[in-house]
């Protein structure tokens, strides 16, 4: 009986499915994480000194501990405190919190980058605080940090590879599985790497072009 076999065409389908899972888990995390991160980022600009310090301290924890450790730790913590999450749910939760920590930082600097003069100009036309927020500060500030946000999003896509340690079969884990069976690491890794690259490179480039245009 042969327990090993070479790479076959249908293995590409297997990889594609796993790539879909990479997109799914990172998409969900980025989506929810960005929304919450926007709110936290805004809070950081309006909270008092203590509130800001506390919120910052909490968010900072997630930037100061390796993602690998966070994943393993939370994956094992949830059942201990009474509810068991599967690899997808646990991975998504950790990635989401991680995204929140990064996006809130980006958002705060974006909102702070809107010059006081511009806001004064808006207020001097009679816009209320919320009108100023809605029509001036958010559009201007978020546009300014859009490239940085793309950077965060792409790094979450790449970091989602770590969810493989929870047994979630995303792209990198699927590659490992195939390597186990086919013992052909080079070509399989090349395919996986090419996928990430094809996803990340064009978006990063587009964002930096956008940044250059916006900077003018």
């Amino acid at each position: 009986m042969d327990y090993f076999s070479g790479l076959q065409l249908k293995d590409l389908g297997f990889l594609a499915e796993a790539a879909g899972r990479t997109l799914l888990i990172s998409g969900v995390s980025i989506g929810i994480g960005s929304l919450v991160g926007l709110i936290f980022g805004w809070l950081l600009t309006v909270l008092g000194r203590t509130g800001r310090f506390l919120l910052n301290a909490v968010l900072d924890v997630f930037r100061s501990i390796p993602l690998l450790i966070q994943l393993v730790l939370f994956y094992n913590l949830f059942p201990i405190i009474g509810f068991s999450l599967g690899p997808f749910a646990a991975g998504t939760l950790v990635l989401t919190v991680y995204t929140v920590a990064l996006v809130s930082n980006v958002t705060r600097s974006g909102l702070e980058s809107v010059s006081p003069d511009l806001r004064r100009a808006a207020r001097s036309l009679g816009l209320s605080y919320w009108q100023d927020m809605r029509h001036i500060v958010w559009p201007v500030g978020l546009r300014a940090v859009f490239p940085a946000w793309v950077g965060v999003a792409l790094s979450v896509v790449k970091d989602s590879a770590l969810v493989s340690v929870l047994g979630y079969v995303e792209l990198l884990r699927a590659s490992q599985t195939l390597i186990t069976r086919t013992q052909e690491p080079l070509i399989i890794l090349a395919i996986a790497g090419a996928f990430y690259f094809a996803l990340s490179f064009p978006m990063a480039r587009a964002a930096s072009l956008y940044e250059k245009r916006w900077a003018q």
Partner: protein
Amino acid sequence: MIDITNLHKRFGPLHVLKGINLTVDKGEVLSVIGSSGSGKSTLLYCINGLESIQDGSIRVDDTEVHHPKTDLNRLRQKLGMVFQQWNSFPHLTALENVALAPRIVKGQSKSEASERASEQLNHVGLGDKLDSYPHALSGGQQQRLAIARALAMEPSLMLFDEATSALDPELVGEVLDTMRMLAREGMTMICVTHEMGFARDVSDRVAYFHQGIMEEIGPPEQLFNTPQSEHTRAFLSKVR
């Protein structure tokens, strides 16, 4: 029209305005000069309630600006303001820049706001730039856009804070011309400026600020030719 009595403004320990008394009549053009840090911008911010005050009062058309019950957003519609820099909203076209506030603050319909906005832009000579974004405009055009934007709220008073000092020398003229046009049309204006020529030609009165105090005020000929105060004289000799 504007009545300021014994105005005091502090930033923490810093005493920036030390008892200003000033009245500006309807249709009058007042230029404010003075060295950096003397409190000129702060005065303008206090007038339209962008900064709180610590003592005294400012009345605009019989409305007490800093009274807690005053609806500032409403008051500010009367007070157009143009700043030194970064005035225009970078994410909106020239037309949208001007039409935004009438639409969301005054509740004009989109088409009405656009129509009036394009009139105002024509007025300041930007009739052919309606759909340009600010980054595609020169500094002088951006300042004229800011003026149009303020005019669209149909203010009864315009406040200019060094509207030309960030501009290349060649572009200063076009903005000053627009301001001259407003003065001729009878707009009440307070202009903080470094352009002595403009202050001399256009203003009804000129005020000199020095370290939070209004040292001297009077018709331009008097203030420029026979300044009373030592400080005014020193300042004028430096800027000329």
